[in-house]
C-alpha cells in the first residue's frame, strides 16, 4: 500500500506543479490531499492501461474560487454521508466495485450472487445516491 500511495503522489506531481506558482507550501499539501484520494488511488490500482477522454474545449481548469471550493467540499461530505446511509448489501457492492478492483462478474463469482442481482443492487444504490444529491 505504501508503494502505491507514493506512486500516486508522484504521478500527481505534474498536476500540482502547474499550480505551484500561486500556492504556499501548506496550500500545496492541501491540494495534494484533495487530488490524491479521488482519481489517484484508482489510477494506481488499475491493472490495465486506461485510455483517457479528450479535454473539454475550455482547456485547463482555473483555480476554483473560495465559494466553489466550499461547495465542492460540502457536496463530497453529503455524498460520503449518503454512501454510509445505503443499505449494507448495496454499500458493500459499491465498495467492492471500486476498492476490490473487481468486475461485476468477478463479484458474482466470489459472492455466489447471480450477476443480475449484483447489477440491480448497484443500480438501486446509484439511484439512491443520485436522489440524495439532488
Amino acid at each position, binding site marked *: 500500500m505504501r508503494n502505491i500511495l507514493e506512486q500516486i503522489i508522484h504521478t500527481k506531481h505534474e498536476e500540482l506543479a502547474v499550480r505551484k506558482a500561486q500556492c504556499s507550501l501548506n496550500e500545496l499539501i492541501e491540494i495534494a490531499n484533495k487530488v490524491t484520494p479521488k482519481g489517484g488511488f484508482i489510477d494506481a490500482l488499475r491493472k490495465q492501461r486506461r485510455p483517457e477522454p479528450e479535454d473539454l474545449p475550455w482547456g485547463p481548469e482555473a483555480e476554483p474560487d473560495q465559494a466553489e471550493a466550499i461547495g465542492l467540499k460540502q457536496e463530497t461530505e453529503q455524498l460520503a454521508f449518503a454512501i454510509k446511509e445505503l443499505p449494507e448489501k448495496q454499500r458493500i457492492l459499491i465498495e467492492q466495485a*471500486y476498492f476490490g478492483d473487481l468486475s461485476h462478474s468477478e463479484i458474482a463469482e466470489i459472492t455466489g450472487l447471480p450477476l443480475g442481482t449484483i447489477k440491480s443492487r448497484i443500480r438501486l444504490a446509484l439511484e439512491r445516491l443520485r436522489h440524495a444529491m439532488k
Partner: protein
Amino acid sequence: MNMTDTIKHHLTPEILMAYSAGTLPEAFSLIVATHVSMCDVCRAELDSYDAVGGVVMEDAVTADVSSDALSSTMKLIAASDTAPKAPRRSTGTLPSPLQDYVGGDLSAIKWKPLGMGVKQVILSTSKAATARLLYIPAGAAVPDHGHQGTEMTLVLQGTFVDEEDRFARGDVEVANEDMEHTPIADMGEDCICLAVTDAPLKFNALIPRIAQRFLRI
C-alpha cells in the same frame, strides 16, 4: 468535437462505473474514452462515478508513506514544467484517445479488406478484449452475426441501422448474447465504427451473407 445534442445512444451505467473503477479491459476503456470525448452527458455521469469512487477510497484506506515521500515529491514539483499544458483535443474525425491508437486521423488507418468493400483494422490492446475499426461502404451490410459476449459499436462517421435502431456519429450500441443483428450502413455516406468485443463474433452462415450488401434501407 461536441455533438452532445445529437447523441441518442449512450453508455450504460455499468460500463461507465467499471471504467471509473478501472476494471474494464483496455479495448472497452478505449471505446468509453472515445465516446466520453464526444458526449458531455456521459462525461458528467462518469464524473459522478469518480466522485463516488473517491469517497469510497477516502473512507476505506489509510497508509503511512516513507518519511521522504513529501520531500521527494516536492523535488519533482520543483523540477517540473509549470506551464499549463495545451488541452488535448482532436480537430479531426477521430477523437484523441482513438488517434493515439491509430497513430493519426482517418488517413493514417491501415485498412485490411474483408471483401465486398468492408474493411477493418484491429487495434493493439491487451488480449482480454478486441478493438477494431470497421469501414462499411454506404448501403453495405456487416455480415449477420450473433455475440458470445458483449459487443459495443461506436459510430465515428456516417450512420448505420440494424434491427434495433438507427445509430449516427457518437451513438454507441451495446449488444449482448441474446442479440443477433445486421448493421447496414446508410446510403448517404460510408460508415466508420469502432467495435469492441470480449469474445469472437459468431457468424450465422459459413460464408457470411455479404450478398445483402445492396439492401435498400
